[in-house]
């Protein structure tokens, strides 16, 4: 802090940040209180379909997060370490799916897995039966659709974490006799552990909240955000919608509160 304004600085700073604080209060605290009031005003009511949707949401998000991490670790590593020009193009291409609207992602998924989609058509011509037909509308379709935007997100996040690790650590390990697998296990993974965990939480949270895609696809696999939408717009049941919203907020907040924990362990 070298700007000749140390003394007055703190108050100027607070004044500048004040709009942000007001925004957070108005948009975060007040509506959450209203939400709680709505959910509780005739006593908290939680039924089996709600819990079922909650369970589905968590399973789906955990699954998507796990699969994304597993699929993206090595490509991210390769992207971070090899000095190609191609890399820049690839990185730009990855940002494209992130920019697409959920409605388009849903649509693209249906084109892949829907009744006349690529995969069922291919399978039909290969093994004679239209296997997977309609898969777009169940859990499989959801996972594929979510991977559509989670894979680019996870790859970009992991790549930036890997890039932050000085390549000299690997060089040092190899001069100390460590073979490639041992370098990965003893040096690279420990150094990126917290980045991997953060990426997992990020992927999980995004999947948990997504509902635009699900709204187009999920007919057999109920998840919480879609149920909230249905409760509010279809059944006009405010209390039911509020209760499920609080459940979703609670899970999201839990995931959010894990993030700093994970980062603190970083050395």
């Amino acid at each position, binding site marked *: 802090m070298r700007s000749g304004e140390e003394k007055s600085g703190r108050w100027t700073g607070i004044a500048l940040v004040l709009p942000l604080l007001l925004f957070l209060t108005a948009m975060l605290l007040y509506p959450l209180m209203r939400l709680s009031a709505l959910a509780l005003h005739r006593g908290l009511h939680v039924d089996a379909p709600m819990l079922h949707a909650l369970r589905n949401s968590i399973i789906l998000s955990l699954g998507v997060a796990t699969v994304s991490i597993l699929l993206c670790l090595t490509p991210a590593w390769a992207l971070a370490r090899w000095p190609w020009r191609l890399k820049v193009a690839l990185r730009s291409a990855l940002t494209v799916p992130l920019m697409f609207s959920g409605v388009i992602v849903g649509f693209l998924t249906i084109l892949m897995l829907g009744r006349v989609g690529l995969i069922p058509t291919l399978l039909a011509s290969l093994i004679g039966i239209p296997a997977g037909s309609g898969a777009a509308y169940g859990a499989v379709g959801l996972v594929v659709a979510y991977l559509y935007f989670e894979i680019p997100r996870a790859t970009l996040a992991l790549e930036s974490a890997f890039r932050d690790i*000085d390549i*000299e*650590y690997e*060089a*040092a*390990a*190899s*001069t*100390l*006799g*460590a*073979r490639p697998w*041992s370098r990965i296990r*003893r*040096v690279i993974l*420990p*150094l990126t552990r917290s980045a991997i965990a953060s990426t997992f939480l990020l992927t999980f949270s995004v999947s948990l909240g997504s509902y635009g895609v699900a709204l187009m696809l999920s007919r057999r696999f109920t998840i919480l955000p879609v149920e909230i939408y249905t409760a509010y717009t279809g059944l006009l049941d405010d209390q039911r919608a509020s209760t499920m919203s609080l459940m979703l907020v609670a899970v999201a907040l839990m995931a959010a509160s894990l993030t700093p924990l994970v980062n603190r362990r970083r*050395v």
Partner: protein
Amino acid sequence: MNVNVTQLSKRYDGDVVAVDGVDITFPSGQTTVIVGPSGSGKSTLLNLIAGLLLPTTGSIHFGNRDVTRIPPEDRNIGFVFQSYALFPHMTAEENVGFGLLESRLPASQRAEIVESTMRRFGIERLRRRRPGELSGGEKQRVALARALARRPAVLLLDEPLAALDAQLRERLRSELKSIFASLNVTTIHVTHDRSEAMLLGDSVVVMNEGRVLQHDTPQRIYRQPANVFLARFFGDANLIEGHLDATGRHIDTALGSLAVSEPGATAGPVVAVIRPEMLALAPSHPDFTVRVEHAEFLGSRWRVEGISERAGRIIIDLPGDVAIAAGESLPLRLTRDSVHVIAAEDIAIGAHHEPDLTVTRRS
């Protein structure tokens, strides 16, 4: 175990030649310092010897073993990085023990080696500390201990003192000197600092633009530099033009006739190397006189820049206990009976090489 590099070259993408056909024998158990300005290829050469880079052509032998294509983990080396590259998620102890993990030694024996190595470097107190909690000097010691714990056949150091501040650097330099002396390991040390090179090297390799200019003892390089680049690189030098006579024993210069310390070069134009400390005040019988332009007090001595009517700009070192002021006239004599000369064909090498001063020259 000798380390030999033969006709070693490294060419990067875009045809940058970092190392250009180098032949060096690094004698077993001795310390060889590779020194040169930045961009001279010295670090690239070290990385080639470590196996962190692959050469474009040429070969590297450790003793009789050809290691040219062997990965670093199978070369049995110790490497100290300029940044130290200590693993930030491990304690000092775990760092020092890292190189032993791949060995088949039982855990107790590994712990013993770590313990004794740390004691040897005076860092057993730092056992549980992480690199983030260590000072620059402590990190350097841990990095050395880590490189040496597995008793490598070759120890490689890449500017291990460059990251430290001036005072600490001087102190650790002397410490490194005694560590090298106590080891019986072939050691290759890379630096851009010429005084570090003179101090630490049993022998010194001077590189420039990817090539070896001279490989010799520090004394010989200082006293008998092979060309103008070397004369200037190792300390300041007055380069006095002269003409070697037919006997090869005397040169005619603007400062008079001087005897040549190594007679026998071909007669013709040569350059005499007169170091600033080879001149002294001589009130009674001066060889020549200079007018003082600048006088810089350096504590133990004065660095004086003077103008001689006959020989132009002359740099002189004089004792620090006299008083010297700009403008005054100094009577000087040469304190040596003979001088080293650089033969005609070696004058050009480095004569116009003044990195980073291109701008001033142009203007």
